């Protein structure tokens, strides 16, 4: 479904992505691990082109993602959840979810709100629909952010460290939702530092360092028999922490 070939990107002289290539099958759940600055976030941001790549090729469902891609259509297809939730503070939970279908897809207010309520139920937060984001906890906000992305009914979901700003209890709530989404067959790419979470949902782990993919393996293989020295170091650091 997603094909990445020789993807390159740099900020000035600094190469963030160096010849990254991999493929993702439909319904596959990929978790991208790696130390800070390894290019994980940049990589997934190239898929919905909020970071344009410099060279190489990305195709999603056979469609090339480049400067000619119609961004609105691409972003309806590829949803994204951010580390800091980025909910719209001036809108209620319900409005946060209903606004994008209304303005982007031209849905009517009632239809959009009904759709939004469905997804808010899906993430178990429908009872908070009339509140403003500031009144919610971090975990609740992140669940709203997931519902908001789902309201665009994407075929791919990108998660950019979705649990990094959450306390452990909230992490499990968000992780449950993501696991249930995965179970429904959503193609998912997730950048995270949560090893347990990675082990739980991933079909495949991609390990990155310094803009390169060093390993790509099923979690049971990656976590027990990492092939590279760098991955072994990384895992031992993580466990000790």
């Amino acid at each position: 479904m997603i094909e990445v070939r020789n993807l390159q990107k740099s900020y000035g002289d600094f190469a963030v992505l160096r010849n990254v290539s991999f493929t993702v099958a439909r319904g596959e759940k990929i978790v991208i691990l790696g130390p800070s600055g390894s290019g994980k976030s940049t990589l997934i941001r190239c898929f919905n082109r909020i970071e344009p790549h410099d060279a190489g090729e990305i195709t999603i469902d056979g469609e090339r993602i480049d400067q000619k891609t119609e961004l609105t259509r691409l972003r309806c297809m590829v949803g994204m959840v951010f580390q800091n939730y980025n909910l719209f503070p001036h809108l209620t939970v319900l409005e946060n979810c209903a606004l994008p279908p209304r303005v982007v897809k031209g849905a009517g207010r009632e239809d959009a709100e009904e759709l939004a309520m469905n997804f808010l139920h899906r993430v178990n937060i429908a009872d908070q629909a009339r509140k403003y984001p500031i009144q919610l906890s971090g975990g609740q906000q992140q669940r709203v952010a997931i519902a908001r992305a789902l309201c665009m009914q994407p075929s791919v979901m990108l998660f950019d460290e979705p649990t990094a700003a959450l306390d452990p209890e909230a992490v499990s709530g968000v992780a449950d939702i993501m696991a249930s989404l995965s179970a429904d067959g959503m193609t998912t790419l997730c950048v995270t530092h949560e090893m347990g979470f990675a082990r739980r949902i991933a079909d495949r782990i991609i390990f990155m360092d310094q803009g390169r993919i060093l390993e790509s393996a099923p979690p049971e293989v990656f976590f027990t028999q990492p092939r590279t020295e760098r991955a072994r170091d990384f895992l031992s650091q993580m466990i000790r922490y």
Partner: protein
Amino acid sequence: MHGTPLPPHAAHPATRRSRPADPSLKRLRARRLPWVALLWTCMVLGLAAAPVARAQQAPSFAAGGLTVCTNPTLPPMTFVNGTDGSDLAGVDIDVSRRLGAYWHVPVTFVSMDFVGLFPSLEAGRCGMVISGVVRQAAREVKFDAVPYQPTSLVVVARAGTAHVTSMADLSGKVLAVESGTSYAARIAQENVALAAAGRPAIEIQQYPTEDQVVQQVLIGRAFAFVSQDVELAFRQTQLNGKVSVIFQPDYPEYRNFAIYIRKDARDRAALEGAIAALRDGGQMTPILQRWRIMPGGGDMQAGDQKAVSGFNWRTFAAALVSPAFARGAAITLAMAVLSHMTAIGLAVPMAMVMNGRDGMLKSAIRAYVALFRAAPTLLQLLFVWNALPQFLPVFRESWFTPFLAAWISLSINEAAYQVEINRAALQAIDPGQALAGDALGMTRMQVYRHIIFPQALRIALPPTINEFISLIKTTSLASVISLQELLAVTQINVARTFEFTEYYAAALIYYLLIVFFFLWVQKRIERRFAWADRLKATSHAAA
């Protein structure tokens, strides 16, 4: 161009000469044309008809109508009678009307701040200035002056003050004069002589209107003020003899009031002829008698004979409900609202550019903001009103009203400040907000409209209301370009009656009402920003 034949007239020198390329030449010709036609007619009809025809012919500055610039704060020469700001009265007004009748042209008066009179004349906004201005060599460098009424300078102090015998006796004392007049420069010459003699200078204080000058003496801040004898005679009726002349210096340059026109020998001769004809025809005497400059005058309606001391509640209440004050307040309010809305309309797109990537446009906006924040607002108003018509004559036409000029100036000026407010507000929004909007497939405009603007409004609102309140008061500057806003109406009424406390208080009430209304509006709007505060958001949701 090779091979293209020249048009036939281009080859003919006589034809070319008759087609002046310079538009100013054309204008010159057009202006002379009536005269040429007239001469020609005279020659045909015979010399006997000529003197009558020429005497009735309006000079070029009054062709098609006589527009008169005046600062109606100098009774009995030019002032406002009654509380309605449009009812001009005085010697100058009567003389202008007689001139219009003499030339068979309609007369229009434009009242404005004294400082604006000569720039307006130069810009062609009016044909002549008649505003109790004395004839002076310095002014005649740039304009032609035609005297119409003798006068003399007087130094006036509170009643009971000992007379002095020379200007030098005023050494070390405070003398109040109207700014924009030549009095200050004349006193400065006295100061040179005093300095040479090793004596302290006369301390000059300048005030924008004559009534404020008088006020300084009444309240005792100034020792004396400088005025003209005719004006003082009129003031005495208002002041019930509270002041008296202590010295009458004979300066040759203060012997005559004069009408000023743009330099033109023929126009000057025509105006001199007209004044002489009015005098010879016995038309000047009734005017002078009416305003009590000559004995035997009739009833003088101006100047309510009220006591100067104590607060006159009746005057205050009458001013509050008077149409003139209501209209002044309406003009002030309309000017502030329109200018600020225009400014915001201009500033938002500029702020969006400022919030984006560097480029030519961004540098241009930065230069605009720097320029218009640096230049005083008063200067910008005077520039738009008086300097612009010299470059672009279309701005001299009647559609370019003081209101329009003030609207344009204040909008452009205010936009420069508003750009900074809006830019800061946009910058304060977390970049993650736009990123989330992008990721949800919104276009740039949708992101601005639905996500950034509603949040930026909360940040921009308090400084914007602040700017607006400041703008309400800045509109008073537009009185220099003859906009009859609240403060201009106030000053005209103070000049008429000297009941300054009452009229100032009435103006203050209007300003307070306007400002408090908008503060209330601000509170109402801010209620909608409960989402930014957890406690308020909770109580909001519960309500």
